[in-house]
């Protein structure tokens, strides 16, 4: 838990201070000095036009990329080198991508187990945890099916189960419904919210779809690398 002395949010899970990210030697300012605190247990919706820096923001929060300038803390851990990035990704973050990015050669259950592998958890314990998570996303009966045969919505639910495997305090979802029709998208969002509430995780959701921003505790709109 981080102690803050200067702000109004007492218990922020994520703190960004003057975060800047430039690409191509400074010609592209994807993030232009972002200050942002994200509270625990919150549902944060990030919107904005294409190219406004939403994915870049998630990448720096998710310790996938380092900012060009500024500082980031996730759950009290400063993300500033490769070691801290690997640690934060493994312990603090669950990713849900627009593309499910499941491993096609593995079963649904094995895909959910993937984040548990580097933690040295025993196979049987991994299986148990995967079955439990698949049950939560309503796919308990698919644990041993190949992911190739599954529908888009089912795959995305498996990706959600995978994101939750390490019980991270922060879930980052980049247009998780972008490839789904609105009905399936709504189902997937329902599963995501249910899991979030159950685990008390914070969800940062990037989307173009206004309808799925409903109920957000915090709305962030981005434009040209800045918060509006």
């Amino acid at each position, binding site marked *: 838990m981080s102690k803050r002395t200067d702000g109004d949010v007492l218990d922020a899970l994520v703190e960004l201070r003057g975060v800047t990210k430039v690409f191509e030697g400074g010609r592209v300012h994807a993030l232009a000095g972002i200050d942002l605190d994200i509270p625990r247990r919150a549902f944060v919706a990030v919107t904005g036009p294409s190219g406004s820096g939403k994915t870049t923001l998630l990448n720096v929060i998710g310790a996938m*990329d380092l900012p060009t300038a500024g500082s980031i803390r996730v759950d009290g851990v400063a993300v500033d080198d490769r070691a801290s990035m690997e640690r934060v*990704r493994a312990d603090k*973050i669950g990713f849900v*991508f627009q593309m499910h990015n499941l491993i096609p*050669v*593995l079963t649904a259950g094995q895909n959910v187990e993937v984040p548990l592998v*580097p933690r040295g958890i025993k196979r049987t314990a991994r299986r148990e945890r995967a079955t439990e998570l698949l049950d939560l996303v309503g796919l308990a009966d698919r644990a041993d099916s190949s992911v190739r045969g599954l529908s888009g919505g089912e795959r995305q639910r498996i990706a959600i189960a995978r994101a939750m495997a390490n019980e991270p305090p922060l879930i980052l979802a980049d247009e998780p419904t972008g490839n789904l029709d609105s009905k399936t998208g709504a189902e997937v969002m329902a599963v995501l919210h249910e899991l979030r509430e159950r685990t008390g995780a914070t969800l940062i959701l990037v989307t173009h779809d206004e309808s799925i921003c409903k109920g957000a505790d915090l709305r962030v709109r981005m434009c040209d690398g800045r918060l509006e």
Partner: protein
Amino acid sequence: MTYVWRNLFQRKVRTALSMLGVSVAVAGIVALISVARGMRTSLDDYMTNTGASLVVHRKNVADLVFSTVSKKEIEELRRVPGVQDVSRANFSLEQLPKTGGRKPLLPVVLCFGRFPEDRIMNMYRAGLADGKLFQTKDEIIVSRYLAETLDWGVGTTVKLFGQTFTVVGTYTSRIAWENQGLVLHGDVVSKQLGRDGYTVAFVYTADKDRDAVQKRIRTAFPRLDAVPPGLITAQFEDQFAVLDEMIQLVTIIALIIGVLGVLNTMMMSVSERTREIGMLRAVGWPRRLVVRAILFEGVLLATIGGLIGLGLGYAGTELLLYFHPTSLVATYETATFVSGFTVGLCVGVLAAIYPAFRAANLKPVEALRYE
């Protein structure tokens, strides 16, 4: 590591092809070394088969072919206490006379010069298949292999180095060298070679006297050496060095071919899985785990390929022997299979190192954007 296993298993054709690469490399090495070992042991076998206690040859010659033991030395050897018999042996390699028959494996014929009264003839007596042993300088006995391929049955007349001989017998032998040859009077070979002495002398003693006789010969004949027949190749190690170098060369070539094949597969498999690797990093896999997974994939590929290669190598060698039953021999040694398998493993590891580090150095953000 189900992940690795499934990855290999799902891309069957590609996996099979690169496994085949490893297999062929390993099989080639196994077959080559087994045959080379076979040649080496068969020389030892040949010597042992004579039943002699000691082989006496000129000291310091690089190849047994250049050894000479003079007539005078033979007489002196006969007088060494404990010696029961001294059998003279010389040897020449001759071009094969043109005949109507089929061609044997080698275009040359090995001519073993022996003397009818020497004890070494017992060896041929035991292996006689047809006819009788030669008694005169214009009689020869030939291996059944030559007799069959060249139509040299008993009673045939044969022209060799401008002389005419009558085939009086055929013999069989389990020694490859002898099956490629014929046996005739030692004086004829001496004359043909223009040498007065003999190549080597086979000394027969009672078993218990052997070591003592060896010592006596070594002290009495400073220019000769005497060794038990089973140790003859060890004595002429240099002669086999060329063969060993050839094996090394082939091994290196096999290694390179194998590495290139597997490297290609592994690079393809890494580039196809770029997004997957980005995802693995995103969900918290550290670099070393990604490296390990890919190395493991290479090693698994090579292990299976290597095991198949050992089988193929054995089968291939047997097939060769089947087609050349009398002129080729193979000796299977555990060490041969171990080195074949090691080469396979090296192929797997070497070929996986570069792709593994390529994969580990992918930036996760970029890997996930990869289309």
